[in-house]
């Protein structure tokens, strides 16, 4: 009896220890970036242009570039992903064919981002001749996070009870009226949260934009979607690995990392905020 309880305790403490060590790692990374990054942050750093190949000056073009890419990605991926999810959960009959589509989507979520980068290079940059541009980069990132958005949206739609649909149909609503008025509003928080988390991931990706959108240094800010942009993750990658004086410009690297981190965390907060707000409105 006693040994059984001891075994229980050991397992419990082991799990607790593992969980804490994971949290500890994350806390260490965050703290490290925060401590080393904060001194680099200044008004000039956030709003200025890079100088001396990024060794001095600011990172404003990279911040702007990343924001533009994120907006472009949202504009493409959100509607596509949501409508696909609506089709798959509400309209498509359960068949071998839709099962295959689902499998393909899940598999796509596991494809390495560099492969999406190469795909974007082949299709958007070269074949469709968008060149290395915001458009090509956004489309590539959109392809990459589509699976995440579709799966998250499907889950959110499936979580809306069947009786909501039946109740609406029984009142003489058409299928689309039912989805639009009595399913989507309740599924929205879940759909948006899942999607924004996916978009946060896209904002931090380097490999896809490396091949389709990003330049290390541009003298001018972009003026159209066919322009190349600078981007935070790529800027950081160059500063950390390709710069001749990589060791000397550590503060610039930390500063860039911190800004990127804040951007992603900010996006996640938007997701949480949206979720709480809409949940409050539609509680069942």
């Amino acid at each position, binding site marked *: 009896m006693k040994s059984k309880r001891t075994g229980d305790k050991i397992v419990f403490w082991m799990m607790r220890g593992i969980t804490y060590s994971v949290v500890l790692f994350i806390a260490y990374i965050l703290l490290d970036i925060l401590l080393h990054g904060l001194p680099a942050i200044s008004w000039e750093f956030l709003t200025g242009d890079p100088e001396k190949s990024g060794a001095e000056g600011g990172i404003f073009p990279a911040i702007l570039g990343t924001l533009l890419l994120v907006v472009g990605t949202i504009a493409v991926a959100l509607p596509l992903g949501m409508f696909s999810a609506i089709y798959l959960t509400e309209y498509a009959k359960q068949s071998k064919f839709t099962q295959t589509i689902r499998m393909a989507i899940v598999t796509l979520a596991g494809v390495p981002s560099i492969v999406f980068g190469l795909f974007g290079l082949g299709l958007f940059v070269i074949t469709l001749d968008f060149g290395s541009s915001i458009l090509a980069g956004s489309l590539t990132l959109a392809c990459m996070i589509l699976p995440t958005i579709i799966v998250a949206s499907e889950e959110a739609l499936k979580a809306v009870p069947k009786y909501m649909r039946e109740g609406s149909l029984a*009142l*003489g609503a058409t299928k689309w009226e039912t989805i639009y008025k*009595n399913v989507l509003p309740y599924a929205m928080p879940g759909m948006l949260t899942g999607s924004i988390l996916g978009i946060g991931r896209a904002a931090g990706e380097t490999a896809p934009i490396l091949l389709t959108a990003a330049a290390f240094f541009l003298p001018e800010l972009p003026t159209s979607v066919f322009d190349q942009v600078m981007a935070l993750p790529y800027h950081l990658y160059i500063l950390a690995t390709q710069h001749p004086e990589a060791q000397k410009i550590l503060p610039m690297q930390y500063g860039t990392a911190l800004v990127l981190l804040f951007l992603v965390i900010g996006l996640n907060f938007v997701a949480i905020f949206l979720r709480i707000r809409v949940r409050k409105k*539609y509680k069942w």
Partner: protein
Amino acid sequence: MAELFSENNVKVHVREMNFFYGQVQALFNINIDIPEKQVTAFIGPSGCGKSTFLRTLNRMNDIIDGTRIEGKVMIDGSDIYNPMTDVVALRKKVGMIFQKSNPFPKSIFDNIAYGPRLHGVKDKNSLMEIVETCLVKSALWDEVKDRLDKSAMGLSGGQQQRLCIARALAINPDVVLMDEPASALDPKSTLKIEDLVNELKKDYTIIIVTHNMQQAGRVSDYTAFFYEGRLIEYGATGQIFTKPNVKQTEDYITGRFG
């Protein structure tokens, strides 16, 4: 069945109807005439097909993949399974109350206004009028008139079910289908629903599926007994409950099985 009521009063007319879930046949050769502005109860043990039959009357089974129907189902003399039939118009005419009350997570007002809005009523005053009339009809007005803008999810189970009745009435149906509307409610709320059914039959044809034989006895004018997908016996409620013609009906009603 002609002896039950005059032919002129037939609202729902079903002949040689078979119903399938995929390969499984759920209803066998159903023939029944249901009278207008009366309460007809469907009784029978679980799985006997009474709910399935009810759901064929507003084509709610259409939304289940792989279902199939044969035979004739007429309401007011027109075949509701005719390819030309507008399902939306049918469901507007044949309202439905579900077993589990299913208010939408919206305000009480918006719940009842949901149907009318779908069918083109936009004016706030007309909507208000509809909401009030329906809540009065469903005996809920006095309890909720001060909190129409509050969420329907805050109502009690019995109130929610009456709200669902009000919501169904708001689209002005002819026929109201009720699928065990009181099975999840306490006795007091159940009685309220039963009173309501008695009240509503002045204006509506009511078809109610119930597990509860006392309930069928209390509220209905006609009773149909289903067993294993077949309509075993159908007649005036008094006759079914006092001298059923078929042995199975008697066994069920006296509680020997089911």
